[in-house]
């Protein structure tokens, strides 16, 4: 069977989750690989969540928030904008491919954008193959 990646998606309640809803309401076809977890703000997404997802076997993590300046909480997405690049730099050192973690912005009206981000990420992660978490079972030897 072909490899189908599992991607954990974090969406903020106010923009990107609504964008994802809109994609559904408009019946846009979208890769089923991203499973969304709703948080109130992308600023709630701890780097720990991302590494936890990988630890639990995710092949990719997608974090979506409101566009710059549109945050419902005024500035929460800016905090995410600071954390994710540093996390990505760290994960790159750990050998995790750049394409496995993505931070992007989707407004409540951008169902199409949501779909294109999800499809694009899914395709890229699919091409990378599974993220074998070599930690848990890291056999000695």
């Amino acid at each position: 069977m072909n490899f189908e990646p599992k991607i954990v998606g974090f969406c903020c309640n106010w923009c990107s989750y609504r964008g994802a809803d809109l994609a559904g309401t408009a019946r846009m076809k979208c890769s089923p690989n991203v499973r969304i977890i709703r948080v109130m703000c992308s600023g709630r997404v701890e780097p720990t969540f991302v590494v936890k997802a990988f630890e639990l076997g995710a092949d990719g993590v997608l974090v979506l928030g409101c566009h710059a300046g549109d945050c419902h909480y005024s500035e929460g997405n800016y905090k995410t904008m600071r954390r994710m690049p540093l996390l990505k730099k760290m994960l790159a050192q750990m050998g995790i491919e750049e394409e496995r973690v993505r931070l992007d912005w989707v407004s409540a009206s951008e169902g199409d954008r949501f779909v294109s981000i999800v499809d694009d990420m899914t395709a890229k992660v699919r091409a990378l193959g599974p993220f074998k978490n070599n930690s848990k079972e890291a056999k000695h030897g």
Partner: protein
Amino acid sequence: MAKLKLALYWASSCGGCEIAQLQIGDKILKLAEVADIVFWPVAIDAKYKDVEAMPEKSIDVCLFNGAIRTSEQEHMAKMLREKSKVLIAYGACAYGGGIPGLGNMFNRELIFERAYLETPSTDNKEKVLPQTKCKVPEGELTLPEFYDTVKTLGQTVDIDYVIPGCPPEARTTWLALEALIEGKLPPKGTVITHNAKAVCDDCPKKRDVKKVKKFYRTFEIMPDPEICLLEQGLLCAGIATRGGCEAPCPQANMPCTGCYGPVDGVIDQGAHFLSAVASVIDSNDPDEIQRIIDGIYDPVGTFYRYSLPDSLLRRAKIK
């Protein structure tokens, strides 16, 4: 009352923990009054068979320092677990993997290549690498197996307590020993320190709200001794590190490097440290943020200096 039977062992570590154990100073006399050391390879000659010969749970307390890197260390950890009533992970290496744990950024092959072939001081024309078995005229020689991945003591065997630090401060060591001597042991799994809050709680520097425009490495600036080092752009791990050490590093104007491990409830010390640091970057402009982040060299070594094997990801993925 019978004297306590004490064992001390070192696995993958630097030897600093042994010295730290002596740092308790004249309290060592008090210790000698109540305890006998039954096993301590660094100071007392002993063979595996001596330990093997000990009955199960015959050691009252074993202070085990060092991470688990080889099959021999794993074997000793399991054996000492069997023989000890209380097994304590002593020091950062046993607790979180410590500096040897950063070896998890590589695997055996890469480490051997570097250590036995590439280092400038190595003269190894035949390119000999360590083997677990080797035939010589006199017979077969064996070496313990060198593992790909460093594990913590807790990932290898069940542990009872942790005394953190690289090395543990004397006061922390004594706090644990005193509890042992007096039989006032905390609940199993406790990380024994004077302070369960982060190092900031110990640190006397003046703290204000945080906004960082540029991160510096320690040699790049002379920080103001009165003010929180993180506010001055130094990556001080004090915010994300369990206290009780009395913050000797920040007090000497050097940023905390995180050796006491995470605060209780923190799942991944490095990720929390990273998140906190990134949060106080003083910019909302992606390009500027990237420039500021570019000033953080070696994130893994900074955020997971002593805890990589104990982190959620445990090790780097080697292509």
